[in-house]
């Protein structure tokens, strides 16, 4: 009924309505067009990794259409996954990342709790300091750290350079500040009454942390864990500087230093290695995308 009246009373209005929805539809079409374009741009390198990893050396050097696999083969995967050296890199990476994640959580969660809830002398300054530390890049510190560890080795006889466990010392400098910072944000968003209720219920500070704060801030904790893991897994500069023997290398450095032999590039294996190296973060991302994104945006939106 009402549509009829509108049609009769005001033709101009009808035109407006039509143009509005037509604008919308066009905007949507353009959006999709550009999104497809950007998605192609984003996914080309990983797609190309996959394509190349399925090719034999012969097919790669045959200069056929590079975007297509004519004779798919798993020989690159088999080659790498049966290579002790490559598996060694993988395990080194896995161990380093898992231990670093554990260390990071053990340091940053209690610290964040103290900074968010137990105001003490200098706590505000320390929180700011934590954030500033997060802004200090690895490229500023690798030279003094390298020298420090060398001197430390000379003094104490404890050799840190060229040992994989040196990474357990340096990676936390990259992960702890950010994880502490976002955990402060998550903890601070928990209503004050909740810890007061816990205190009245008879919980100690430690119990408040473990039984109330950690479960309630679990999404934040997962986001921080993902962050710590991906940073440890992806770190390239520190292992490149601090480790050289092939049995001490982690995956990214291992692939680059051992698969690239002089000028001979075994691209099939390199791309396979790169894809396997990218797989753990990608798998985590695929399953925990929302936590991943929450952690990414938390640094600027919390705090």
């Amino acid at each position: 009924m009402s549509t009829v009246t509108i049609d009769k009373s005001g033709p101009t209005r009808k035109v407006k309505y039509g143009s509005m929805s037509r604008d919308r539809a066009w905007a949507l079409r353009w959006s999709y067009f550009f999104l497809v374009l950007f998605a192609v741009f984003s996914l080309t390198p990983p797609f190309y990794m996959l394509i190349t990893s399925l090719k034999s050396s012969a097919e790669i050097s045959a200069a056929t259409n590079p975007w297509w696999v004519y004779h798919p083969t798993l020989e690159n995967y088999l080659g790498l996954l049966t290579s002790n050296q490559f598996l060694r890199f993988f395990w080194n990476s896995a161990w380093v990342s898992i231990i670093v994640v554990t260390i990071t959580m053990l340091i940053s969660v209690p610290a964040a709790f103290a900074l968010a809830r137990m105001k003490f002398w200098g706590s505000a300054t320390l929180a700011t300091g934590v954030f500033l530390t997060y802004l200090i890049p690895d490229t500023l510190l690798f030279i003094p750290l390298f020298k420090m560890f060398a001197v430390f080795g000379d003094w104490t006889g404890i050799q840190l350079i060229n040992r994989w466990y040196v990474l357990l010392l340096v990676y936390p400098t990259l992960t702890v500040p950010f994880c502490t910072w976002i955990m402060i944000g998550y903890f601070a968003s928990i209503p004050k009454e909740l810890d007061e209720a816990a205190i009245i219920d008879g919980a100690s500070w430690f119990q408040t942390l473990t039984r109330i704060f950690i479960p309630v801030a679990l999404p934040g904790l997962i986001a921080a864990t993902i962050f710590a893991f991906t940073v440890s897994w992806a770190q390239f500069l520190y292992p490149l500087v601090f480790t050289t023997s092939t049995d001490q290398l982690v995956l990214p450095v291992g692939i680059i230093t051992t698969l690239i032999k002089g000028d001979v590039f075994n691209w099939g294996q390199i791309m396979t290695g790169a894809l396997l190296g990218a797989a753990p973060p990608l798998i985590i991302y695929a399953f925990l995308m929302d936590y991943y994104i929450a952690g990414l945006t938390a640094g600027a939106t919390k705090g």
Partner: protein
Amino acid sequence: MADVTLRKVVKRYDDVEAVRGIDLDIADHEFVVLVGPSGCGKSTTLRMIAGLEDISDGDIMIGGDVVNDVPPKDRDIAMVFQNYALYPHMTVAENMSFGLRLKHYPKAEIKSRVTEAARMLDITDLIDRKPKQLSGGQRQRVAMGRAIVRNPKVFLFDEPLSNLDAKLRVQMRIEIKKVHQKVRTTTVYVTHDQVEAMTLADRVVVMNHGRIEQIGTPNELYHKPATRFVASFIGSPAMNFVPCRLEDVAGKLNVRLTDRLAFPLPPARAARYGSLPRTDKLLLGIRPEHVMEARPHAEPGIEPFDAVLDVTEPMGMETLVYFTLEGSQVCGRVNPNAGAQDGSPLRLAVDLNNMHLLNEVTGAVL
């Protein structure tokens, strides 16, 4: 079960005194409500009893023991918060039993206490749900259940009904009262809502600016307020205050409101106010229900007068009428059939048997 005593309790934040020396004796089983406007120190007082705030000066005793240095968990208290403060990751049963589990009570004991509390609060069906799945009223019940299972010496309520809508608030008010009748635990309850205070309390403590204005039963506060603050804070619509002075006319004591309006005081009142200096600036305090439509026959102490109504508010069972006397707005409650209309004159009557006289400068009720 225990009594609670506050002796000259002071709370200072840097150089601001939030609570300025409070003396209060709360008997065992008593339900005491601290009421006052925001910032009057009532919540701070409650939090000091709970042990969530340090005491700057004075003593707090629970069951005869000074608890100034005792941490909250050892004070044997339970608290219900305004936003309920339910642990979001625990079920209702886990929420209620958290305190008992921390104290390592036997499982069977915990279970029976939780079941009992849940039954009392009618939340047995909700016992396995998470707080997120509950309505506001249900969360409120769980918060109370968490307090009840602890079987503490004292219940502390910090504005527990403020987050509920008006209808639910009335319902939960009754629930709280029922629970208190059953468990008889000493209760300190903080609210800014004077209706809540009046309906729940054995005794009401009216606070203002960090001090206690008056302590008394709801009826005492309503009928015998000690100060202008209490008189205006308790009761809705609030008490009317009209500037006035006393004058002697032909051996009788009159209260003069305007040049044209003066009422003779009833004998009891005349005797009480007779000694006051006639020059004092005074306020006539009169509750709206004591300003009503004029009756056909005269009654002692009820004096008729004419007023031009500014606004009328029909409430159904009564109509509120507003008019102006000497620049002061006055509210009266008349029968809906009295013919009150916006802007029209109406013959009203004031019941001086229930009047109050206040010193305009000190605010004291005389």
